[in-house]
């Protein structure tokens, strides 16, 4: 059986312009959530969000201005920046002359970029359809980021866009992992992106799932695991992992971060409590158990759970699912933290950003603080030892990290990273 390893990382998160910056934020507990006057003007309940600080100039080292002419889609720009960083990190060629037939790409995208769609709608409604040319159609495609990555980096094996709500990012990594395992590719660009715009966030605001009580304290707004959690802060960004078949990576002398030991993605079928917006707990627990089986590890092997933990009422349900699926509790539950306490919920990009964060914690032997949960939800405290939840950075060697995401539509994904 082919083994799959991670050889490159790239990220553009609300609290990190690149991997080094993101690592520093995770180590120091730096939030990327800030106040946005525009959301107040638009009469949102929530006035805070996580938007990456983007430096587009990094792309100009390798590509002409023409490549990015008229690009308005932030998810495309975010994905390109993160992927270029990941390929450079993996010491693979940027902008190659030839198609790389052994490389594929699975790049997730949850909500098509409204910024591109807005351009199209505005032009058509104003009777200016003929003025659009080729500018916006490819950007409005949900596959826009994957299509642009193909133009820039030339993967010639499977090129796929996956879209499974908040489960998208972890699912993209697992799909890429499966393609290498099955021999369809030697290396994969795997990741996901999500645009920053009020249209994506407006629906969530109207559903009353965004944080609205901490508009004057943005860094307090996202409070996973807390008794005072009141919804998530919307986030955005992208992250990319370069996955490679182990022997192929070793043969070219690649730096290896870790192995993807296994994972699973499934659905609860929107039955037995599962719905468009809530998970069937049996589906979640099966996903976690299947992941451990696929990775051939025991619950006791897990050093850290990087939870989905969005800062909604579902946090306590998620913790209960981890407790039940792992068969661990007050005495032996591992550390668990929520990256969304710093980044907000980056929707389709959440899983890939959190996977990069999970690998960085393993690589640098620390557990990042889970912010804003000093007032731990008492129902969660009844299930696990409160000491499992770090309020400050813990320096500790980590051998095995498990990460999960759960999304609208009752979809689940779970992945295990392990040192090699």
């Amino acid at each position, binding site marked *: 059986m082919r083994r799959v390893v991670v050889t490159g990382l790239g990220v553009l998160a609300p609290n990190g312009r690149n991997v080094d910056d993101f690592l520093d934020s995770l180590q120091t507990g730096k939030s990327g959530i800030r106040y946005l006057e525009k959301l107040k003007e638009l009469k949102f309940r929530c006035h805070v969000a996580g938007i990456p600080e983007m430096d587009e100039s990094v792309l100009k080292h390798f590509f*002409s201005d*023409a490549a990015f*002419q*008229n690009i308005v889609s932030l998810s495309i720009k975010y994905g390109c920046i993160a992927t270029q960083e990941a390929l450079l990190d993996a010491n693979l060629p940027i902008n190659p002359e030839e198609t790389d037939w052994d490389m594929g790409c699975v790049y997730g995208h949850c909500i098509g970029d409204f910024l591109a769609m807005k351009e199209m709608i505005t032009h058509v409604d104003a009777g200016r359809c003929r003025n659009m*040319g*080729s*500018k916006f159609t490819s950007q409005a495609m949900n596959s826009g980021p994957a299509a642009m990555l193909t133009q820039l980096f030339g993967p010639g094996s499977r090129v796929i866009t996956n879209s499974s709500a908040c489960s998208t990012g972890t699912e993209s990594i697992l799909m890429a992992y499966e393609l290498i395992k099955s021999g369809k590719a030697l290396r994969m660009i795997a990741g996901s992106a999500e645009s920053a715009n009020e249209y994506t966030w407006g629906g969530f605001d109207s559903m009353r799932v965004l944080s609205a009580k901490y508009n004057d304290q943005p860094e307090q707004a996202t409070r996973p695991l807390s008794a005072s959690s009141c919804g998530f802060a919307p986030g955005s960004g992208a992250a990319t992992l370069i996955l490679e078949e182990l022997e192929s990576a070793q043969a070219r002398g690649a730096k290896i971060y870790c192995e993807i030991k296994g994972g699973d993605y499934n659905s609860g079928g929107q039955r037995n409590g599962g719905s468009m917006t809530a998970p069937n707990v049996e589906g979640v627990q099966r996903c976690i158990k299947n992941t451990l089986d696929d990775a051939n590890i025991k619950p006791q092997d897990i050093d850290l759970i990087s939870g989905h933990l969005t800062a909604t009422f579902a946090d306590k349900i998620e913790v209960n699912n981890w407790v039940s699926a792992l068969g661990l509790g007050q005495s032996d539950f591992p550390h668990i933290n929520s990256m969304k306490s710093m980044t907000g919920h980056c929707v389709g990009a959440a899983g890939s950003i959190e996977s990069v964060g999970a690998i960085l914690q393993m690589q640098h032997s620390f557990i990042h603080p889970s912010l804003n949960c000093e007032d731990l939800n008492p129902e969660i405290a009844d299930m696990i030892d409160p000491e499992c939840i770090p309020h400050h950075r813990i320096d500790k060697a980590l051998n095995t990290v498990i990460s999960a995401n759960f999304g609208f539509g009752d979809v689940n994904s779970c992945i295990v990273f392990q040192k090699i």
Partner: protein
Amino acid sequence: MSIENSFQNVKKLILPYLEDDSLADSIEMDSDFIKDLKINSVHIVDFVIDLENAYDIVVDDDTLSKLSTVREVIDILEARKPVI
């Protein structure tokens, strides 16, 4: 406006669509958009939209489909000049 002025203006409109920046200095009246300037057919349409907006003209579909060189663009601009 002289032909030279038109050429310089058209050249500016072409520049954003050059995949290879080094080709900027090679734009001539007889440059072929696809063969010489390596501009793909979709971006030729985008260039023509920019041209239409810049000169407030409409390039019909037949003319667009046959457009291959810079000189043909200049010819379109010259043809619209009123005869005094």
